[in-house]
């Protein structure tokens, strides 16, 4: 039997090079004659640029060139494009102001690129940058999305987006929802904020542009989750370079979490500048630059109302959300708070009518875009918080209220009122598993024990649904996507039977080199060490849409399976020819082609050799070679789901919170490598818990300065902030991909925030606390306790 088969915890093959420091990241690449770029960034959130004087910088030691926005504009360089057109509810298209690569006339957030200085060393470029004199006229800034929509707010785009409104989008039947709410026995209301986050990939972004004078070709090495998408966006929309003349390489990439999906200014700057200075140009972000230039995540302000009938059944949900876009529209910013958010508001429940309105606001902040979960954590946080508030108001056990409203396991496929059709799921079972693993029944005793120690202890449940592997292309196209959402794979069987797979997915920590190799070892019956996975280079891989939205296995993995199917089909024909049998009589199993019912068979290695040394070969019917490509466009999203339970204790003296237990029972469909899945869940939970209790991006409301611009002030979760996780899985198979897989990369970040917040509110429920904003810092909890204690004493 092959040693790498589906369902086994094969060790990550890529980890040897990562853990021994032998990975090749963009910053590890150095090209002959390379120069270094330093990007001068705006220190102001909002200012007019009166003048830029670069003459002193241009003559500084080692400097090759200094460029400003006007230099690029003069050459007809385009702005960075937005990849998704969202229309307002009145049918008008979103306001789509330009996104110049280097700022022209105005800067709109702290960190907005103003000039690039290119020199023989990075230090020289940085020294010279201090000699660039920019005359700014500082103007008033607005950073909060709700404040931005208020009359009289500073205008980020003036007439190009009046009132700072990008779009006012809606989904669902508002009249039906209003009627249902009027008829509901109880209407539960909540106002909440989904806190803004900074992605913080371990590897800061970097890019090297290289122009080849001899051929006229360009190469861009970049920290990207999707090099083909960057080639398309930068080539077609910004620099006007035909694909055939532009190679984009995304080598080893140290984490992305969404922030490396987008086409960034620095990629265009180094590529364009490399032709101007006729030398390769390298840029590597410092961590402080990452904070002010990587697209941020979340940042919603929401009011919601849930109608409940006398039996505790949800009858309607109405949601009004204001979403922060930042100063410019990042590549997929516009779809996150709409098609990845409003469509998820049914959650795991049978709520029959739902209405969602999302107003997107421009502010003087770094652009906001998809970050691990992207819309779905925001939807889940809202739904799961309001369900808990409803349980409290109804005096009902939160687990029981959820059970009463779950979509039953026998109701799939299930059409929600917000466009999605769920294909499979079993929410009762994952909840039951989590309740048992967390000893939910025994919680009250633990609460009492904690009270005896002077601590408030709480337990919180979140059940979630997510939509992964965003698809199909035709549907997303009708909703405004300016891209297809398929994936490609090439399975190249070599003459002696080893296999190279070229995938359009991109790994930046996920372990594709192992998981995909397991698929191939299993599918073609070859030893896993004879399978090589290649990704991240537009010159090697036919095409690719890359990795985000937990799509790699469901979409990219399926493309590999489809390509393997073609290999096997061709192999059967070759085997039939050699074995003098009919194609239909050839069976393929464990790497051997066998004439059914006989012991006559050939191994895949023998078939491959025949394909490449085609002496005895059906030339009339087949071409030589054993190399097949498939493009796979899914029929639907996949719908992972699950139940997370957090148990926490709060020290009333300090407000300090301890997470005592965290339980996750997830349905990811079929699991290829359980160890990699557990790792993905661990990482997702760390980020979800980070959002709930630690991470919060803070801007000064008056000046627009980024107050959390370093790890001194932006609290990243660390190992000692986290408990040991109790994980389990229960699979219902995805019905529309051949592997039955759903995706696991984002689940932790989606379920954890609501579970933690619900646990905190549960802990402080005896004091009358109804809601807590994230991150639930010690001072916030201390104040909540003190305020409610004094309130209780006064009553």
């Amino acid at each position, binding site marked *: 039997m092959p040693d790498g088969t589906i369902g086994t915890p094969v060790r990550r093959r890529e980890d040897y090079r990562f853990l021994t420091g032998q990975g090749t990241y963009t910053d590890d690449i150095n090209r002959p004659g390379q120069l270094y770029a330093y990007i001068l960034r705006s220190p102001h959130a909002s200012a007019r640029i009166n003048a830029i004087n670069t003459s002193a910088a241009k003559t500084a030691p080692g400097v090759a060139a200094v460029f400003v926005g006007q230099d690029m504009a003069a050459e007809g360089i385009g702005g960075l494009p937005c990849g998704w057109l969202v229309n307002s509810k009145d049918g008008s298209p979103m306001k789509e102001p330009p996104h110049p690569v280097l700022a022209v006339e105005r800067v709109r957030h702290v960190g907005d690129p103003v000039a690039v200085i290119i020199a023989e060393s990075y230090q020289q470029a940085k020294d010279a940058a201090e000699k660039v004199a920019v005359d700014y006229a500082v103007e008033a800034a607005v950073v909060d999305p709700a404040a931005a929509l208020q009359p009289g707010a500073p205008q980020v785009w003036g007439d190009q987006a009046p009132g700072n409104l990008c779009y006012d989008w809606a989904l669902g039947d508002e009249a039906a929802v209003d009627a249902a709410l009027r008829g509901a026995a109880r209407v539960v209301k909540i106002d909440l904020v989904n806190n803004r986050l900074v992605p913080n990939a371990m590897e800061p972004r970097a890019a090297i542009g290289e122009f080849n004078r001899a051929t006229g070709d360009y190469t861009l090495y970049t920290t990207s989750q999707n090099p083909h998408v960057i080639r398309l966006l930068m080539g077609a929309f910004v620099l006007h370079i035909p694909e055939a003349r532009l190679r984009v390489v995304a080598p080893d990439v140290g984490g992305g979490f969404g922030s490396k999906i987008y086409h960034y200014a620095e990629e265009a700057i180094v590529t364009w500048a490399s032709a101007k200075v006729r030398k390769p140009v390298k840029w590597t972000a410092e961590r*402080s630059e990452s904070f002010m230039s990587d697209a941020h995540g979340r940042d919603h302000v929401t009011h919601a109302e849930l109608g409940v009938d006398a039996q505790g059944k949800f009858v309607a949900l109405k949601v009004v959300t204001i979403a922060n876009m930042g100063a410019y529209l990042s590549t997929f910013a516009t779809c996150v708070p709409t098609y990845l958010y409003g469509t998820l508001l049914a959650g795991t429940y049978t709520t029959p009518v739902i209405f969602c309105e999302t107003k997107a606001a421009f502010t003087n902040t770094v652009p906001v875009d998809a970050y691990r979960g992207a819309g779905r954590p925001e939807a889940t946080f809202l739904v799961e918080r309001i369900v808990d508030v409803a349980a409290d108001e109804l005096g009902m056990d939160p687990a029981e209220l959820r059970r009463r409203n779950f979509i039953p396991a026998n109701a799939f496929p299930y059409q929600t009122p917000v466009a999605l059709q769920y294909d499979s799921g079993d929410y009762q079972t994952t909840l039951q598993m989590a309740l048992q693993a967390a000893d939910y029944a025994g919680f009250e005793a633990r609460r009492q024990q904690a009270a005896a120690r002077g601590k408030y202890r709480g337990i919180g449940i979140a059940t979630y649904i997510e939509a992964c592997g965003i698809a199909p292309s035709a549907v997303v196209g009708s909703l405004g996507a300016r891209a297809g959402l398929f994936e490609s794979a090439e399975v190249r069987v070599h003459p002696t039977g080893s296999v190279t797979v070229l995938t359009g997915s991109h790994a930046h920590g996920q372990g594709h080199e192992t998981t995909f190799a397991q698929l191939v070892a299993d599918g073609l019956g070859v030893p896993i060490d004879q399978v090589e996975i290649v990704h991240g280079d537009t010159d090697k891989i036919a095409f690719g849409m890359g990795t985000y939205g937990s799509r790699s296995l469901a979409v990219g993995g399926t493309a590999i399976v489809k390509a393997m199917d073609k290999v096997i089909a061709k192999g059967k024909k070759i085997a039939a020819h050699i074995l003098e049998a009919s194609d239909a009589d050839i069976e393929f199993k464990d790497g051997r082609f066998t004439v059914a019912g006989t012991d006559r068979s050939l191994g895949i290695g023998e078939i491959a050799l025949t394909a490449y040394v085609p002496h005895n070969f059906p030339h009339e019917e087949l071409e030589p070679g054993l190399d097949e490509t498939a493009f796979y466009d899914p029929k639907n999203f996949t719908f992972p789901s699950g139940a997370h339970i957090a148990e926490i204790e709060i020290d009333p003296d*300090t407000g300090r919170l301890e997470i005592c237990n965290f339980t996750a029972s997830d349905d990811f469909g079929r699991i290829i490598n359980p160890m990699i899945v557990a790792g993905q869940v661990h990482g997702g939970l760390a980020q979800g818990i980070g959002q709930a209790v630690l991470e919060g991006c803070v801007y000064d409301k008056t000046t627009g300065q980024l107050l959390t611009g370093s790890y001194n*002030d932006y*609290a990243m979760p660390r190992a000692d902030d986290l408990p040991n996780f109790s994980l389990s899985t229960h699979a219902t198979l995805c019905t529309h991909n051949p592997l039955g897989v759903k995706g696991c990369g984002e689940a932790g970040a989606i379920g954890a925030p609501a579970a933690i917040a619900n646990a905190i509110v549960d802990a402080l429920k005896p004091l009358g606390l109804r809601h807590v904003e994230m991150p639930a810092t010690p*001072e916030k909890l*201390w104040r909540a306790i003190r305020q409610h204690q004094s309130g209780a004493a006064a009553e």
Partner: protein
Amino acid sequence: MYEFQYHRATSLDDAASRLADEEAKLVAGGMTLIPTLKLRLAKPTELIDLAAIPSLKGITEEGDAVVIGAMTRHADVNRSDVVKRAIPALATLAGHIGDPAVRNRGTIGGSIANNDPAADYPAAVVGLNATVRTNKREIAADQFFTGLFETALQPGEIVTAVRFPKVAQANYQKFKNPASRYAIVGVFVARTPAGVRVAVSGAGACVFRVPAMETALAANFSPDAIKDIQIPQDGLNSDIHASAEYRAHLVNVMARRAVQACA
């Protein structure tokens, strides 16, 4: 960082003579200075490295005191049998500064000379009524820390050691900033030969004592004795992590916990 000269001092006199250049800077462990240079927030002409001066390193007992050389790393203080036996609270404090990388580079002399308002060592130096030795004189703890990143050190003066009286009953309680892990509030309580001392780091611009608590604890060394003593919020630090009001409250909580842990 900007360009600078690097000089590895061979003796205290060598280092002190180099400080005639007022733009030169001493570097001990570099745990504050190097990040400051990387952010281009300082532009020294020369870095004078103290790491190669043997007399600045090491931990010795001198009668009823423990003397810790200025260039002694936090990790060495944490692991020292002498410190663990004579002043266990000090060894524990050193083991909770920063992270392992910081503890293996950072030094006691560097920490107190920098006098970061959220650093841990100043609370121990004041709380234990230690004496700071320099190449010129001895300075009592109460006179050493003078303000935000300010000390009594004169130009050309170099910390050589800190002399701590042996105090068995002492404890340091730190409430950490969730991001930086520096002290939002750190309270050092000690029953020294000269009386009870309560020193607070993190809450203000500079380490300070709480006389009202010291008096109350001298009469009755128990958490209850100070439970109603709230320090005024005026002048306390206030930032996105903790308001002055919260810090004032935490001083009381941490002080009570330190007393409890001493008892």
